[in-house]
């Protein structure tokens, strides 16, 4: 017993030593103010570079190889910053009509997955018909991903747009790019959508949606919603810890790929300048 506890103590000491060296590295980074600032921003822009937090699936070598592949793909196609609620236009080469491309404009209603498996869903209403398309971010057949309007919404998922009135998910396919002023923060659209009457695809009353106008539900539904609610989940500190990657580890990952990402941003800026120069010649 005694022996094991002492060994444990030693192990803790060992970890502490590692931590100390690591934290000193981090401190060294934070002294360069611009770098540390961009590190904190990176985690929002490039969420999919963070690995799956499930412990049994993690392996540092696999994660590293995955990041290298992602960076290699990002060198070929500019995948801009976007969030759930942003309006995107995705151009993909079409294997069903050879030599042609397929462009789809829509609002991003969901982002899921990490690494090479990152995906997003776009939704639009075309000719009074709701259409949704699922895209993979690192699919080599994607030719261009444009952000037409960069904004966030009040919720993490906008799946309720399927049950909302169609005008909330109708967007013009020939929409112009709305340019945000340089250095401004990503705006949050406080729009509250109106849901159609029941029946719904999901029980929205159970999901604490913020971007939905208040709707009437029956006493029975309310009771049932209260019954399955889990308001204590935010207090389960370990569960939350296991759903996320600790900040130290995030910094480790982003400081490793920071340079390449910076390089990609620079090329994007150059391209943007070029595009804005060309713009006057385009006739609408």
């Amino acid at each position, binding site marked *: 017993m005694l*022996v094991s506890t*002492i*060994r444990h103590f030693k192990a803790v000491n060992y970890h502490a030593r590692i931590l100390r060296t690591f934290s000193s590295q981090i401190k060294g980074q934070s002294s360069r103010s611009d770098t540390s600032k961009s590190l904190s921003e990176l985690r929002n822009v490039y969420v999919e570079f963070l690995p799956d937090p499930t412990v*049994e*699936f*993690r*392996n540092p*070598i*696999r994660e*590293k*190889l*995955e990041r290298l*592949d*992602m960076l*290699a*793909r990002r*060198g*070929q*196609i500019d995948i801009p910053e976007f969030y759930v609620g942003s309006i995107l236009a995705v151009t993909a*080469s*079409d*294997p069903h009509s*050879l*030599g042609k491309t397929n462009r789809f404009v829509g609002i991003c209603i969901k982002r899921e997955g990490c*690494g*090479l*498996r990152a995906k997003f869903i776009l939704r639009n209403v075309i000719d009074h018909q709701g259409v949704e398309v699922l895209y*993979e971010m*690192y*699919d*080599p*057949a*994607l*030719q261009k991903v444009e952000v037409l309007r960069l904004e966030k919404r009040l919720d993490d998922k906008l799946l309720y747009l399927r049950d909302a009135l169609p005008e909330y998910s109708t967007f013009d396919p020939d929409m112009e790019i709305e340019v945000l002023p340089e250095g401004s923060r990503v705006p949050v659209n406080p729009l509250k959508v109106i849901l159609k009457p029941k029946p719904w695809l999901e029980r929205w009353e159970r999901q604490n949606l913020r971007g939905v106008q208040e709707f009437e539900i029956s006493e029975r539904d309310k009771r049932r919603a209260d019954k399955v609610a889990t308001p204590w989940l935010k207090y389960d500190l370990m569960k939350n810890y296991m759903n996320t990657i600790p900040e130290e580890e995030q910094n480790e990952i982003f400081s490793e790929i920071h340079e390449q990402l910076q390089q990609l941003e620079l090329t994007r800026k150059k391209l943007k300048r070029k595009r804005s120069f060309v713009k006057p010649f385009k006739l609408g």
Partner: protein
Amino acid sequence: MALSQIIKQPTMKLLEEKFLALSIQSCSAIQSRNKQVAPQPRLRNPTWLTKKNRVIHDDFLTADNAQFVQEVIKDRYDVPPKVELPKNTVEWTPKLKRTGVIARKIGELPLWLKTGKKISTTLLQVLDNHVIKYFTPEEYDPPRKRPTRIKNKAGCLLLGAEATDPTYLTKEYCMLFKNSGVIPKKHLARFFISPDAALPPGTPITAQHFSVGNYVDVRGLTKYRGFQGVMKRHGFKGMPASHGVTKTHRRGGNIGGGGEKGRVWPGTKMPGHMGNRYRFAKGLKIWRINTKLNVLWVSGIAVPGATNSLVYIYDTNLPRRKPSNPLAFPTYFGLGDAVAEEDIYEESLHRFSDPTIVFQKE
């Protein structure tokens, strides 16, 4: 007169001896009738299955001394062993059997083909494999003696993987590595090979032992799922949830008829322990190799075992997936002038650094 006294008499002793001899003879006569039956297996473990881990006591070493112990280990093992490459190597032919490698399953990733199709692959990291010992067919003494009808005798190659701190190991275990000159390894595995494919101790084996486009068999320990019912263990359908069904929703049902055959037949699928067995995933194609980190991308996500568990990779024995081009035999030595690329891709695979796929008219 007591029986013992009778036996003591010389005549009786003679009689007894004769009787014993007779009985032995009769026994051998019975045995000679069953000549073709293989002899009973002898329960004897291979020589390298010694006790591995030392019982760790806390020694309260001073920091200096602990450092000194590590220094000695470093001095002893830091120099890679000098290996004389086998001189008279033969060309590879499909009948020759090469060694396999010890690897680790490190996860699953998608890859895309040039046609735009997505395939899922499993990543296997080939660990720092070194040859520890080679047993010739005569030397290798299998626990079960086979009848002499085997024509192609196989030698046994002992590989070790994943260097570790020898202070945690027993002395007997460390002595296994003495002649090879490599640092004691955590994992040992034997591979049966053709005598022509023998390798000298200390030879490193890397991921380039295999080449892209070929097929491999992967052996691993499946995940242990404990005692499971027939629905999970054998994929039975179960029984209806309603319509008068009581208490038999997930049960197997009937296990056999009555009458003359009224017993449980061997091999009947029933509930029991599931997983925790060595299983093969056969005929997996190698799509990509990273030579720097020694990682193989093989097709499919059905490699047995959990992520971060050990697997053993062999050249496939499926007759229709045997390689057409000669393999690196007995292993890849890296003797050529050209430095291998960091990433070797299969031809039909899209490289992530390639430009976007455009589907053109033929």
